[in-house]
């Protein structure tokens, strides 16, 4: 029952946007900041507003029929108050500014959090709602207030994703009229690639002579069998006496996290997306272990580093790949 209705509404809306340029005028992407003003705020009565109108007509008919001027005055007062509430609804949107949109990072398939930075201007804003991506969120701001409103949008694939059209609307103060304005900020958000769920670890650069240096620590960690080349002073003579073979004191080696050199070229035989997914997983693991990493991509070479900023830089580079 509801599905055909929703379908009809959607088709109606599409038709209206095609036919009525005034409504679609601001569907063109526009640069921030966006200030709402009279030429882009529309207002219609809500369902309650229509019902209230019918009620007012009934009251008017009753008052006129009984020639009751006091009731007529009350009806006029209520009707005029309703009409005034329309202006209040308009004023609650008029002058509201969307100053910036600050996207957070998200991996494809996960919701992406946007921070909408809003400026109230000189008026108090109450019960303003934002529709974005099929969800609604309400907020209020005092006069001269600023607000960062977190909103989540769905993501599907990596890469640049234009922001969806968003609608600011309000039925303040009485819910009889709905004022709204469509915003289409000219801004895209970068969605990071989704890492693969499992796979081999990166090939360690074992052949690199730099990395064969042993790091001897101070503390005794264990005893192990003698291997040719172990220095004599490290043989545990007392312990060896009770064993068949020589034992050597092994000191802990607090190796600094070995750097991962992640390279696009070291992953042959995979298609681009699979490579990106694998590199993303490795970057994630490196970040989780606090291991420094470097990344070579076609057209981009990120020297080694660690920490969230480095991770974000690498992931963004991956996301931007064609």
């Amino acid at each position, binding site marked *: 029952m509801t599905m055909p209705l929703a379908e009809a509404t959607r088709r109606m809306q599409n038709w209206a946007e095609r036919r009525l340029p005034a409504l679609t005028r601001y569907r063109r992407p526009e640069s921030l900041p966006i200030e709402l003003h009279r030429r882009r705020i529309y207002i219609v009565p809500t369902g309650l507003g229509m019902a209230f109108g019918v009620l007012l007509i009934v009251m008017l008919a009753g008052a006129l029929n009984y*020639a009751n001027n*006091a009731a007529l005055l*009350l009806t006029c007062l209520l009707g*005029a108050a309703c009409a*005034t509430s329309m202006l209040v609804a308009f004023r609650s949107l*008029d002058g509201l500014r969307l100053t910036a949109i600050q996207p957070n990072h998200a991996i494809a398939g996960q919701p992406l959090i946007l921070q909408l930075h809003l400026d109230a201007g000189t008026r108090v804003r109450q019960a303003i709602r934002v529709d974005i991506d099929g969800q609604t969120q*309400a907020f209020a701001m005092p006069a001269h207030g600023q607000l960062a409103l977190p909103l989540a949008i769905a993501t599907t694939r990596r890469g640049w994703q234009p922001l969806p059209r968003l609608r600011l609307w309000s039925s303040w103060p009485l819910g009889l009229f709905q004022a709204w304005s469509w915003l289409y900020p000219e801004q895209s958000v970068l969605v990071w690639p989704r890492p693969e769920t499992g796979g081999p670890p990166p090939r360690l650069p074992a052949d690199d002579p730099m990395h064969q240096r042993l790091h001897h620590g101070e503390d005794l960690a264990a005893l192990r069998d003698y291997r040719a080349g172990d220095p004599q002073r490290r043989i545990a003579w007392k312990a060896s006496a009770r064993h068949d073979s020589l034992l050597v004191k092994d000191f802990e080696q607090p190796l600094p996290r070995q750097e991962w050199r992640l390279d696009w070229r070291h992953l042959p035989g995979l298609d681009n997306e699979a490579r990106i997914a694998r590199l993303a997983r490795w970057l994630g693991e490196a970040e989780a272990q606090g291991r420094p990493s470097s990344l070579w991509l076609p057209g981009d070479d990120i020297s080694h580093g660690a920490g969230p900023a480095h991770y974000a830089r690498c992931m963004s580079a991956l996301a931007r790949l064609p």
Partner: protein
Amino acid sequence: MIRLRRTQRKEALLDNRAFDLLCLTAAVVLCLHAVHLPLWLTAGLAAVLGLRWWQRQRKPGRAPIYLKLPLVVLLAVTVIFYYGNIFGREPGSALAVGLLILKLLETETPRDAKVGAAFACFTLMAALLADQGMVATFVVALGLLPALAALRALQPARLAASFLRELLPGLGLLAAAIPLSLLAFVLVPRLDSPLWGAPPAQQARTGLSDRMSPGDFVDLLTDDRPAMRISFEQAAPSPAQRYFRAYVMSHYDGRRWTSAQTGRQPAPLESTDSVAYRVTLEPNDQRVLPALDVPLEAPPAAALGADREVMSSKSIQDPLTYALRSALHYRLQAELDDATRRRTLQLPTGFNPRTQALATQWREHYGNHDDTIVQTALSLFHNGGFNYTLAPAPLGRDAVDDFLFATHEGFCEHYASAFTVLMRAAGIPARVVTGYQGGYWNKLGNYLLVRQSDAHAWSEVWLAGRGWVRIDPTAAVRPERVSLGASAVAASQAAWQGLNWLQEFRNRWDVVNRWWSQGVIGFDALRQRGLLTPFGVHDTDTTTLSVLLAIGSVLFAILGLTWALWQRRDTDPLRAAMQTLERKLARVGVMRRSSEGPQHFLLRAARALPTQRVELDRLMKSYLDLRYAHAVPPPESLRGFCQAVRDFRPRHVVK
């Protein structure tokens, strides 16, 4: 309206604040209707409301269907049984109030609350069908506040406010709506005849009646509701002349006086002068229109009776205004015809033997001097130890005998009745007249306020050569009753003399009631047609009114839009000055880009306007200094910058 099936759709629950406001709305509606609802219904509905509120405070949830349905049926049945039917103003509003409160039983979602708040507005209007006084109207208008606040409370994400503060924005909204509502009120075309039958209200009102027996007036004399207001075209008559005749009663059956409509021509009247005045009569369910002394002719839709009382063609259900002319010095019915003489001498046989004997004795003693007999009777009242009291001893079968010879106490009805019986027994044609006497002269509004407590009864006797002459026997006992009015007499009787100032205040305050009654309640189709008379249009028809209404609405729409579009100027003078500078530069084609800082912008402007490079450079430096070098810019430098911006005149570059 009452939902029988639980809706499946999930909806957000109503928050407590909105529900509390809705309960308050319902309570206000109930209070306003309590005046005309039976007490048990009010109490029952109040109990339902309180229980529901208490229940929801503890645990939200709809009342179950097995509770709702019987309550609805019970409400309908009791209303039908009590009022006899379900249509009409009173049963209709009782039912509406009941349904509103029962609706709260199932109010759990914003949708229910919206329905409830809207319906509450309707029931508030219904309260005005019972009483359209000024105070009632104001109270009902204030009753809209909780309803509006409840609608506001349904909106998500509001700034927090205390419960009382929730009500204030509604007040502002209503205040802003007043001008438009007054325009609509004046211009909405009134109906000449009702669309559907308006059944008359069945409530009994106290007021004058076409029958009178001594003691009837007690309720009336303590009722201080306004009865009518009179404004005179010239000077008002003196207090002693302010007798407003309503009923003339000639028939006496030993207990009560009744007036009979004979259907004959009005009695002939010879008069030398006349007074023109306008009466605004409060509704009283009677047909009689009180008139000052003897009216010359009847107003429209009314007729003069045989004794020159004015009868409207239908009973007065709504406030009525009529204009009249009356004679103060006159000869009424100089020639008495036999039928009238018989009627006004008639006395029931076998009643009041001692009175009859006294009158006969006077007649024998004074012979044909009717005047002297009248004076003798008046001096009997004056000197015979008679008392004026509103709580006289009860009278027996021979009421006049008991009064004259035993109890010696009573008020106007007793005196008028006894005096008339005495006159008739002495052979002088006499009759009882009821109406109002006195009133409060409101200097502020220049009108006479007559209350129900000013009801009075007096006598008229027919004297040869003079016609019917008004004799007020009460004046013989209590002269101040006539000179100062009923309140003076009542005050001396009442224990609460300290409340005199209250009465005085109410008398003065009545000018507002009169203004309301004339300006608002009395603004009918007729007055509306004459709306444009000062502009030369004598009959403003519906089309003209509609056009005017449309024009007025457009004007108000423009006014409202101006207000809506008006934005307060930025309070930061530095930013305002910068914006002025931007506007000035934009006029010569240097627009500030949204991504451009002040420095870049002004440098670019300096490049575009080389002749004013120095000036712009200085402006830029001082702006940057004011904006970034100080937390709060020093006021004198700020003023200097603003002045420099004002003086700056960008000149076009001749290319």
